[in-house]
């Protein structure tokens, strides 16, 4: 095990996979300089495989599809809020091509999306559109919430033969954690049970995992036993681990930093309300971002996101 930051773990995964497979290459805007804090330095080792693109997201994100279709394995980097300008390429091409053409082609592409929040970047830079992509068949979606998962899931994503939407929470960038020394890939579709507990199940994703753990630890002191589950990938989604946990605890809270309506929290809730209904002893609580754009002002922004207080309140509501 080596301790490193979430960002360094991502950098490591990319470096390892680029060494392993010379079809892997990087594309993005000013990534050689490393503006998003992960790719800096890679161009020294892999000069012609680290490509600074024009500001043409539809162009280069679609080009990733074409390159993948003829044998390359592109990793594309951007911010989640910029996905909208390339949405057609992501949905109509990356997500649909394999199916529409009857499986004639595989598209091993990783789209890496930085998600900023809590940093006063306002409405144009703070989106978390993973629920949107969860509604589009043909994509896989990973959202690591620790340095070890960042490396392990990214390695899996790079080796996967389908397009993977890889969401990185910039709030975790500097978080240090233990990362295995050997070549560990974290499999898709296997939730991580971060803490076992018996009173209530809390499913938490992305940037909300850390505050969830904090709350769980605090509640432990008060005698409440909280099970914390991070699905890690939402497509495929490990519903079994979630349903098994709810069967044990009878109570469910879901924490998702995306906007509430049609969120991953909504989806997980509806799965449990359909398939795990008879286990439930209390209403399912969702803690999400409120359905409002992210305001700039330091006086307002923090009101929108899930935080420790809201998570604790929801757990208490579920326990009532």
């Amino acid at each position: 095990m080596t301790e490193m930051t979430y960002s360094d773990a991502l950098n490591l995964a990319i470096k390892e996979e680029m060494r392993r497979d010379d079809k892997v290459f990087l594309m993005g805007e000013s990534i050689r300089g490393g503006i998003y804090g992960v790719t800096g330095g890679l161009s020294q080792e892999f000069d012609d495989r680290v490509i600074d693109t024009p500001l043409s997201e539809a162009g280069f994100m679609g080009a990733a599809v074409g390159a993948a279709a003829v044998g390359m394995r592109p990793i594309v980097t951007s911010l989640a809020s910029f996905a909208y300008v390339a949405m057609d390429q992501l949905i109509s091409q990356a997500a649909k091509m394999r199916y529409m053409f009857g499986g004639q082609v595989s598209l091993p592409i990783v789209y890496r999306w930085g998600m900023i929040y809590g940093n006063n970047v306002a409405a144009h830079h703070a989106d978390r559109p993973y629920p949107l992509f969860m509604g589009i068949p043909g994509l896989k979606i990973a959202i690591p919430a620790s340095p070890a998962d960042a490396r392990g899931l990214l390695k899996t994503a790079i080796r996967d033969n389908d397009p993977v939407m890889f969401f990185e929470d910039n709030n975790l960038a500097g978080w240090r954690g233990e990362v295995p020394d050997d070549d560990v890939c974290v499999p898709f579709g296997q939730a991580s049970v971060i803490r076992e507990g018996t009173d209530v199940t809390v499913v938490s994703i992305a940037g909300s995992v850390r505050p969830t753990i904090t709350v769980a630890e605090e509640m432990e002191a008060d005698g409440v036993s909280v099970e914390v589950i991070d699905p890690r990938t939402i497509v495929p989604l490990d519903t079994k681990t979630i349903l098994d946990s709810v069967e044990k605890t009878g109570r469910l809270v879901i924490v998702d930093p995306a906007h509430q309506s049609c969120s991953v929290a909504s989806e997980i809730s509806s799965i449990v309300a359909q398939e795990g209904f008879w286990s439930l002893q209390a209403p399912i609580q969702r803690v999400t971002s409120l359905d409002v754009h992210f305001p700039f002002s330091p006086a307002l922004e923090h009101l929108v996101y899930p935080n420790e207080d809201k998570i604790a309140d929801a757990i208490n509501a579920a326990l009532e």
Partner: protein
Amino acid sequence: MPEGKELYMLQLRRMMLIRRFDETVQTMVQSAELVGMAHVYIGEEAVAVGACTALRDDDYITGNHRSHGHPISKGGDVRRAMAELLGKATGYCKGKGGSMHLADFDIGILGESGILASALPVAVGAALGSKMQNNDRVVVSFFGDGASNQGACHEAMNLASVWKLPVIFLCENNQYAVTTSYRDTVAVENIADRAVAYDMPGVLVDGQDVMAVYEATVQAVQRARDGGGPTLLEARTYRYEDHSEGLNRILREPYRTEEEVARWKERDPIKLHSAWLIEQEVATQEEIEAVRNDVRQAIEDALEFARQSPYPEPEDLFTDLYSDPLPAR
């Protein structure tokens, strides 16, 4: 690569194949044997055939909703194409794509896209892949005059130029996007003139003359293979038929005159090429008729094959969505 008579006869044959294929499609739509939308390529055959006969088998193409001409021009199998149109399991896409989404990755047909201009960035990416893998394959991307106004064109052309990628952007200017004349929607006289904005050659070519398209493509391909980067070709052509089969029934206003249509039909690409073959003494009228009969037979066979083929089974619904099926939920 075929040359001389072999080439010219191949061009004739493929144009006739497309024509016959699409005439058959028209009757199938009328008899309701064919469901969904169908956009026929009748009148424009010289464009795709001229371009694709300048390509190697391992070169790539991408296309659009007007989707039968491109794959047939690239050597696609009319049986599998027809089976796809009928939604059969033996079709190119196992029935999942239908008319607008033919593809044959084995011979570089990277697929027709129903979203306008959406395949241009994909074409650029295939060219990037060729370049990074150091093979000398080139890509031809077909798109319409209407599609030329999409933002994706701009991004794709600029990318291809700054990265000097082997792409030929082939605009099939049939002068209308559904009912709208390109003169009302494209700010320049010739779409080829937009090449200036990307520092690449822009060439306007007679889209009814298969040899003219072929020659222009040969030059563009040469440049692309030599590392010279992309070219924008505009082929001026004309769609004889409805935008999509049956659409005229719901339109409330005529958008072009009968005379205009008639005028363009005088310069029919198959007639022109046939005349040229005879004039140049490449082929006799009999040889040409033989090709026509052959083609008629091939399309009949294709239709028969398609009709006899089984539909996909309900359990095929989820196959091909991912390269490994997702764990069942």
